């Protein structure tokens, strides 16, 4: 299916924002400093590993 190249920037920006929002909603939220963990994010990562995606 042909795509108008002028739509390309819109497609990539929307995709970036969408995935970023999904990640934030999954628990990958801004935290200050380093060495931190989130139970929700960790369980998501482990479920990805379990599902063989990562």
């Amino acid at each position, binding site marked *: 299916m042909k795509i108008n190249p002028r739509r390309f920037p819109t497609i990539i920006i929307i*995709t970036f924002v969408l995935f970023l929002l999904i*990640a934030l909603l999954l628990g*990958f939220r801004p935290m200050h*400093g380093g060495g931190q963990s989130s139970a929700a994010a960790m369980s998501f990562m482990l479920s990805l*590993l379990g599902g063989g995606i990562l």
Partner: protein
Amino acid sequence: MTAGTKTKTKKKPIPLMTIRYWIQGLVVFASFLLGLRHIMPGEASTGGSFDAFCPFGGIETLLPYLFRGETLKTTNLLNFAILIGVLGVSLVAGRAFCGWMCPLGTLQDYLARLARKLSGEKRHIRGKKSPARFPMRLPKRVDKWARYIKYLLLGGILWVSVTAVYPPLHAFCPVRAVFSFQMTGLLWSVLITFIVTSMLIERFWCKYLCPLGAALAIFNKIAPLRLRLNEHTCVDCGRCDVECPMDIEDVHANSRDPECIQCLECLETCALKDTITLEMITIQTPKG
């Protein structure tokens, strides 16, 4: 003026590459703001580190997070969020992040343009080989092998990250050298090397050293949104090869090359209608 002489003036659309330069410029501006924000008084205690906004930080801290349950120092969960955003773009359009959204790639484009101006190019004519001496290309054989360095770097960084405390690239990251405003002697030398190499060879960092580019390269093979060449109309003029910032050989035959950053310079340069097109590969189900 009579009705017959009235002509409708059609507005000329903004060239695609102008849109690209604008997006790139905005990303660079945002990166400078992030760097400035971090050196503001009090920011060190209330704000996240500059490294926390780097998608590659997500790769650096991935294994420590999985094995030890915590991120490396100066990184945090935001790195993963931004990495997921970048991976989303890559899943759809290959290395488009490198060509359209990477601040470091943008600066390399600016520096290459500056090098062309300084070394004899008066006006850039799209598709025509520049008379400028710089940026130049490495000999083909050297170039081919040097491009594997970034994959080795990526493997090395992942290996080291398992036992690291800080992100392995932290001390000599060119993004920090350019945008973080917290310079060390090492970062100054990285910055100078970055400027000089980017003026000598176009997208030097992307071609040979960028570990994030190495990680995203595989997506060029699987992304559904890709460039396609119409072999019936292509006259093999080589105009697209001239404009390719990644110096991919025979651009028209290698649209899925792992080095392609989906900048669409080739599409914009091609003078023949519908010869290089952007297509979305769809899964076709058998009818009936």
